[in-house]
């Protein structure tokens, strides 16, 4: 158990390669042997079969007119080239306008959710840094939403959002009297806020978990030294904590971005399949375009466009981060 503490994994991998005769013989022997490939084969077959091949098929599907008339037998589906993309991405058509709307809703949703999740996670991590009574309990409590199965969590929230029987309106209208009339939360303008709150509730514990792990790598004496130099809470935060979290942030923000942008579960479970216009997030929009209208060609074209967008953003993000790291 002692070998699995936080710091030890790098120690093992950082030993100079070929530092002992036995090892270098082993490595050289392995280069010739097929063993590593055989060991990787099951993982490779599964990844190819369930992810890579379906993705290639998805790209092919996006070039077909794959409506309900052709779904039983693909070979009858006419090849239409980029027609699906043209009708999907052309903002003069209804489909294109709706997709663009959905895209902007998702951008706003993702930005707000990632930002708030990071903020809450960082606050909790910073304030739980020093020991006090009840710290271990709070840490466990804060991680609970992350461990809860997504459907149990989101169904509970949808109960809380019910107009007549939910907790939110009970508190806002009956107890605090902030609003006079019971607002709807799961349809209309409020639905965006509703889904955003659930998203933050579910993802901030993950940010907390990662940032807490990241803070363990910031040396304690830095804080002591800064304190002796007279640096207050905010200065220590600015000059020690935040720079110390940079390596974690690089991965964390990207992961949160991708998860939230692709998030299907939260809106699907909260709104029961069809999202209101104001909270029409992209993955549920694609789902509806495919399975409700049974037009898989257009659905695939939208998915491929989404993937390309995510690839470009990810690549740009990584390049930007690398450049900043070299400058620093």
């Amino acid at each position, binding site marked *: *158990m002692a*070998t*699995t*503490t*936080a710091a030890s*994994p790098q120690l*093992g991998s950082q030993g100079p390669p070929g530092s002992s005769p036995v090892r270098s013989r082993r*490595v050289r022997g*392995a*280069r010739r042997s097929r*063993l590593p*490939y055989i*060991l990787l084969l099951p*993982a490779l077959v599964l*990844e190819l*079969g*369930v*992810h*890579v091949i*379906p993705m290639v*098929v*998805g790209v092919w599907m996006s070039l077909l007119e794959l409506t309900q008339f052709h779904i039983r037998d693909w070979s009858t589906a006419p090849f239409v080239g980029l027609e699906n993309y043209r009708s999907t991405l052309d903002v003069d058509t209804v489909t294109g306008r709706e997709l663009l709307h959905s895209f902007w809703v998702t951008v706003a949703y993702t930005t707000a959710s990632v930002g708030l999740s990071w903020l809450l996670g960082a606050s*909790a991590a910073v*304030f739980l840094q*020093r020991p006090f009574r009840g710290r271990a309990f*709070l840490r*466990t409590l*804060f991680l609970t939403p*992350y*461990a*809860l*199965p*997504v*459907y*149990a*969590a989101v*169904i*509970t929230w949808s*109960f*809380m959002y*019910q107009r007549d*029987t939910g907790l939110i309106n*009970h508190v806002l209208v*009956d107890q605090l009297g902030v609003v006079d009339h019971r607002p709807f939360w799961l349809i209309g303008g409020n639905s965006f806020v509703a889904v955003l709150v659930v998203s933050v*509730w579910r993802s901030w514990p993950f940010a907390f*978990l990662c940032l807490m792990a990241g803070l*363990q790598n910031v040396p304690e004496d830095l*804080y002591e030294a800064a304190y002796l130099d007279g640096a207050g*809470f905010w200065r220590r935060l600015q000059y020690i904590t935040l720079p110390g979290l940079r390596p*974690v942030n690089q991965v964390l923000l990207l992961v949160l971005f991708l998860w939230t*942008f*692709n998030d*299907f*579960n939260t809106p*699907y479970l909260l709104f*029961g399949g069809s999202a209101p216009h104001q909270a029409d997030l992209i*993955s549920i929009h694609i789902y509806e375009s495919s399975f409700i209208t049974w037009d898989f060609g257009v659905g*695939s074209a939208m*998915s491929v466009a989404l*993937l390309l967008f995510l690839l470009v953003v990810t690549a740009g993000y990584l390049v930007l981060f690398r450049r900043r790291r070299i400058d620093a």
Partner: protein
Amino acid sequence: MHETTGERWGRRVVLTLLTVFTVTPLYVMLSSAAKPLRDVQNDFTWLPSRPTLQAFVDMWRTVPLGRYLVNSLVVSSIAAVFSVTVAIFAAFALSRYRFRGRGVFSVTVLATQMFPGILFLLPLFLIYVNLGNATGIELYASRTGLIITYLTFSLPFSIWMLTGYFDSIPRGLDEAAAVDGAGPLRTLAQVILPSAVPGIVAVTVYAFMTAWGEVLFASVMTDGQSRTLAVGLQGYSTQYLVYWNQVMAASLVVSVPVVAGFLFLQRYFVAGLTAGAVK
């Protein structure tokens, strides 16, 4: 360490707010599960008018929850066991060997994590259906199809985390075993696996949680017989009435095992994440 009064109050306020935010839905789930149906059909109340466990009895009859539970258990357990087994072999290769294509493999596996699920949902659905029509192997609407699908979902993270764990086991142990004449597989079984038990347990729980909580593929790839909890819990709402007390009771029952498992093993996750983050 030193803490000013302002910092102490700041800490108290922030942590209190976060606690309220975190606890409220958990409390609603818990208290509503103990309410009679009448309570959840009227204005919300903080406490049950008359605490009852009736919802925990009725929930098995309103929908075939037992069948969904068995399906979820079977699918998640088998997927977790296979996922971890496959990941152990892959992680052993990545940790102990340098070979051509090693980098490409790692990057590709992690990259599949960023693909929108919806992108391969449609093709996979059609592949399963057509494969079934052509060969008679039932993957669509069967537990087998779900198992195969789910075990790939947890695979990338499992491989990544186990590689970190295996890297932390000193190679001196391998070498000692090699001197004793142990082949690579015996080294894996007798040296590496015993030292990596916490990591393997943590990854198994993670794989189980991933399968237990998956919604998108479950909603498309299952029928009445193979339906899992993720879809089945939506059955408590009829056109006229939602049995909120029973939904909350069922949610509680299906959450407790995974939450307990995760919280019990949380420090291994922190250790695994730290290992990954500093690399």
